[in-house]
């Protein structure tokens, strides 16, 4: 009787407070203060977890980019010198052939020169297979490209269009991946949870707007209301799939406009990137023009009078435009990963709920079968029960 008397005022008071003698003794003036304190606590928690983790990832990627630039630019590209030596050797051989064979004898000269060129071609092909791309490390490892590389390492996409070649670079990649991937997984889970909650809230609001009229009709039945509130919380899989589809479609149009790919190639790139496959045949950073390229074009302009100055100006304007594109691409990837995590969480909730319902149905079916079985041949059991009692 006394416990019932104590419990009655608690639903009348604050819902969040736990029932007990302490709630009765507390004065009403403390409630708004505690509410404000709780809001502040939640806000600080949100800032520390979500924005903190996101900022941590961005800082980690930027520091990694600078580190990789520093390490890989010290790489002395021996293949360039090797290629130059090959070319010098080839020209030397051609000169000796010209000296040796008289110009009048063209057939023999042609045969000898063809042999030299074929050997030269096979050597160049071998060098290319070993990783020669015709650009210096300073051209390859610009800051935007290094940032894209760090992003692909952390998110486990791994395009492979540019890879570390020095032993220090490879070792640092291993360490960077070891520490970066857990950090990314933490971001992935947190962002997925927050986005799932936001999307659920949004979906509930939309559902309430849609279901306003039938709700008024069913206002009298409390049980129906409880059922409806429970059903509204679960977001269906089709909504998640639509969200992913629209996001991929947006990315498709964006990359198709920027990189001048076809729509199919752009869609293919978005799917392989968001699924973290990342073949590397299409990489947005591949067309990035760097300051090193601009310098190389300037030198070329100085050396050769016939070069086009308009091309150089266009190259400079394109280089200035790359950073904003890269930033948007970076945000697209990270947000896309969070969106995938959100959809994964929501789908998992729905699958779990359906599995539970299926389990209950199976249990009921099994019990029904067992009852029928007992009904068919119940004599030995009854005798056994009589013996027991």
């Amino acid at each position, binding site marked *: 009787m*006394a416990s019932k008397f104590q419990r009655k005022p608690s639903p009348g008071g604050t819902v969040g407070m736990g029932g007990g003698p302490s709630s009765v003794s507390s004065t009403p003036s403390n409630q708004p203060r505690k509410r404000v304190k709780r809001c502040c606590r939640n806000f600080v928690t949100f800032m520390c977890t979500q924005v903190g983790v996101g900022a941590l990832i961005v800082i980690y990627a930027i520091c990694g980019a600078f580190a990789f630039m520093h390490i890989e630019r010290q790489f002395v590209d021996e293949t360039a010198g090797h*290629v130059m030596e090959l*070319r*010098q050797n*080839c*020209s*030397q051989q*051609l*000169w000796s052939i*010209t000296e040796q064979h008289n*110009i009048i004898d*063209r057939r023999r*000269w*042609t045969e000898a*020169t*063809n042999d030299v*060129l*074929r050997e*030269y*071609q096979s050597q*160049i*092909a071998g060098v*290319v*297979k070993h*990783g*020669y*791309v*015709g650009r210096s490390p300073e051209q390859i490892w610009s800051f935007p490209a290094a940032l894209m590389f760090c992003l*692909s*390492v952390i998110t*486990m*996409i*791994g*395009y*492979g269009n540019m*890879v570390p070649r020095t*032993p220090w670079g*490879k*070792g640092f*990649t*291993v360490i960077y*991946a*070891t520490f970066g*991937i857990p950090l990314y997984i933490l971001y992935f889970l947190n962002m997925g949870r927050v986005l799932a909650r936001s999307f659920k809230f949004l979906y509930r609001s939309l559902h309430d707007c849609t279901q306003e009229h039938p709700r008024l009709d069913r206002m009298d039945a409390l049980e129906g209301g409880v059922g409806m509130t429970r059903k509204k919380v679960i977001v269906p899989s089709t909504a998640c799939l639509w969200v992913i589809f629209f996001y991929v479609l947006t990315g498709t149009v964006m990359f198709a406009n920027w990189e001048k790919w076809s729509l*199919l*190639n752009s*869609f*293919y790139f978005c*799917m*392989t990137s968001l*699924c*973290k*496959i*990342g*073949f*590397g*045949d299409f990489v947005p950073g591949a067309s990035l023009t760097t300051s090193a390229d601009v310098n190389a074009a300037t030198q070329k302009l100085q050396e050769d009078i016939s070069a086009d100055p308009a091309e150089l100006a266009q190259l400079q304007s394109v280089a200035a435009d790359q950073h904003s594109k890269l930033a948007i691409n970076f945000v697209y990837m990270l947000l896309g990963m969070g969106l995938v995590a959100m959809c994964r969480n929501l789908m998992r909730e729905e699958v779990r709920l359906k599995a539970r319902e299926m389990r209950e149905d199976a249990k009921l079916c099994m019990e029904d079968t067992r009852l029928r079985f007992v009904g068919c041949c119940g004599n030995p059991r009854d005798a056994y029960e009589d013996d*027991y009692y």
Partner: protein
Amino acid sequence: MSSRRSSFRRREKPAFERFKDHCRHFTAFMFSNVGIILLVTFYIIGGAFIFQSIEIFEYERLKSEKPHRFIARNFSGECLSRIWELTAENISFFDHHAYRRRVNDVLLDYQRAIVKKQLKGPDVEQWSFSGAFLYSLTVITTIGYGNITPHSECGKLVTILYAIIGMPLFLLYLSNIGDVLAKSFKWIYSKVCLCRICPGVAKRRIIRERRKMRQLARALQMHDMENARGSSSYTSTSSTTSSNSSSSEYTRSSRQSSSLVDIQYTESDSDIEREIRGSTDEITVPVTVCVFVMVGYILWGALLFGRWEDWNYLDGSYFCLISLSSIGFGDLVPGDRVITADRDKVEVSFILCAIYLLLGMAVIAMCFNLMQEQVVHNIRAIKRGFKACFRCRTS
């Protein structure tokens, strides 16, 4: 009454029921684990055949429709003719350095043409069964080396569908095999750890008895304090609550004393075995052991690939870590050198690489499961300590 019911339930399950339960468990194990492994394997092999047929068919179609595309430009012939023109021009005066410089420019253009052709050239020879198999594996496991990519539109669409269907399948495989490996590893670890615990069982028992004695003393002290509070209070409600709590304390103390007596009497082997089983079930594998297993597997893979592919030790470790973490740059891919050499060795190398990757990903999933358990356990301990500290502050 309860003992009678328990005996009745034990009698209710004869040997036949136990045998049926064991059969059910075995069937579930077979269908869940081995079935998933076979399903993943067949999915990869099926994907290999599909991609191989698509790319070869597309290549043949393009070859028949647009033959002029596939007639490669004769770069060497052009280069040869240009050099001949240079030589013909220089008939009158034999300037050595000028001639070499001009020939160098011609060779530079020739080199650029070779590099472009080498980098962008689509090779249909890559789409052998082994190459397609490795490609399917990299799609499902999200490694994505990129050394082999589909160039046809149909191939790209099929890749997207294949990835969407295959990745959940692979995640299912990882979770199931990861759980099985985690349980097996935990069992092995508990067996290894159990050898050390055997001499310490007696010490444990003594410690437990001491703890129970301390708890009994604490209960008596709390009882005395509450009796004092009850006597000091004046209101009827507080006196009734204190009397209820005192009666509950009496019952608790009596139960504890009876349990202590029971513990002193029962010291049979079955109890010891039960305690050992309970302790083995509660063992959590520490993080260092998981990290050691992962590093050991990567180094073992480095040794294997170093032997197969003639890689550097650092390159082998680098490749194993990049592959198992599903980054997959594609600068180092097994079979690159073997593709041009021989056809029979390709099969063995690719198959072994596939087995290594599938098993390695399962091992990493196992280690992550165990680490997660350890982290959750530590967080709970910290939470409990924080709660106890909070209680001390409030009181």
